[in-house]
């Protein structure tokens, strides 16, 4: 049993499940957007679409899913390439730094996204 405190849910199974669930949500969201866009949009219809509560909820769900999906994926990338095994202690410092930076970016995007969605 390997311990890890920096992964999304600290459990491989939870992270794996979240990765799959968020992938399905993102697929549904982007397919829906693609359908809307191919149907042709102008500013008025786009604004009307995003002024509905269900669309805002759906968009926020997709945004949160993107955050979770990116967190799980990037955590896997960081723990592959920025490790103590490959670089000594520097690896741990760089990995923590990379994780904090990506967490801040993710958090910023989510808050900013909420502001955009409900500020229209």
């Amino acid at each position: 049993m390997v311990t890890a405190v920096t992964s999304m849910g600290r459990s491989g199974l939870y992270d794996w499940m979240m990765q799959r669930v968020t992938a399905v949500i993102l697929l549904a969201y982007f397919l829906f957007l693609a359908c809307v866009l191919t149907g042709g949009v102008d500013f008025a219809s786009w604004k009307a679409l995003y002024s509905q509560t269900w669309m805002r909820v759906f968009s926020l769900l997709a945004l949160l899913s993107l955050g979770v999906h990116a967190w799980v994926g990037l955590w896997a990338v960081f723990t592959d390439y920025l490790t103590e095994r490959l670089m000594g202690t520097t690896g741990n410092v760089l990995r923590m730094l990379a994780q904090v930076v990506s967490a801040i970016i993710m958090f910023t995007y989510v808050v900013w996204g909420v502001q955009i969605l409900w500020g229209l």
Partner: protein
Amino acid sequence: MLQVSIYRYNPETDAEPYMQDVQVDTGGKDLMVLDVMELIKAQDTTVAYRRSCREGVCGSDGVNMNGKNGLACITPLSETVRDNKLVLRPLPGLPVIRDLVVDMGMFYAQYEKVQPYLQNTSPAPAIERLQSPEDRAKLDGLYECILCACCSTACPSFWWNPDRFIGPAGLLQAYRFLADTRDTATEERLSRLDDPFSVFRCHGIQNCVNVCPKGLNPTRAIGHIRNMLLSRAT
């Protein structure tokens, strides 16, 4: 004449590894790669590699041939040689002891972690623990592994985390005992695997399936383990 490029490294005399070009006369025959290695050794006795049974049973001569891992003794030249060139390297990702001989310590350490032996706390019956033919059939495709390490050393997740990711070979064996109806340690086995690295470093790219000389499917076994973990936790 077959053009062979072989990885050479003797830590006692070489500062770093290098590739040595050798010409081998195959006599126009479709030899096995191991035969070619024997012919090279006849020319240059300092070449080191592991071999034993020469019939794909012992798993000693796992090497990287033209970029693909496999057993030298059961890989015919016609299967791997392109443009009359053969590049021989040690299995990737493991420390090289000398030439094509690698240190399998990390590989065995992961194998040891899965406790690859039958565990049953109930008193042993007078004769043997019986199993139905259907239950026995569940072990097909699992027990045949010869631990040649071709799969684990073809796996990028194992290259980066050989100390934390069990690897395809170890996980295939983990499932071999999880699937065995005579084994009663299923819960303990699953508990030991339930972390972000041991099983879940597998991203399903199936390099292991692609190289397994016995035609086994570790990715499928890993999927079964994941499903067992999932149904245990939901």
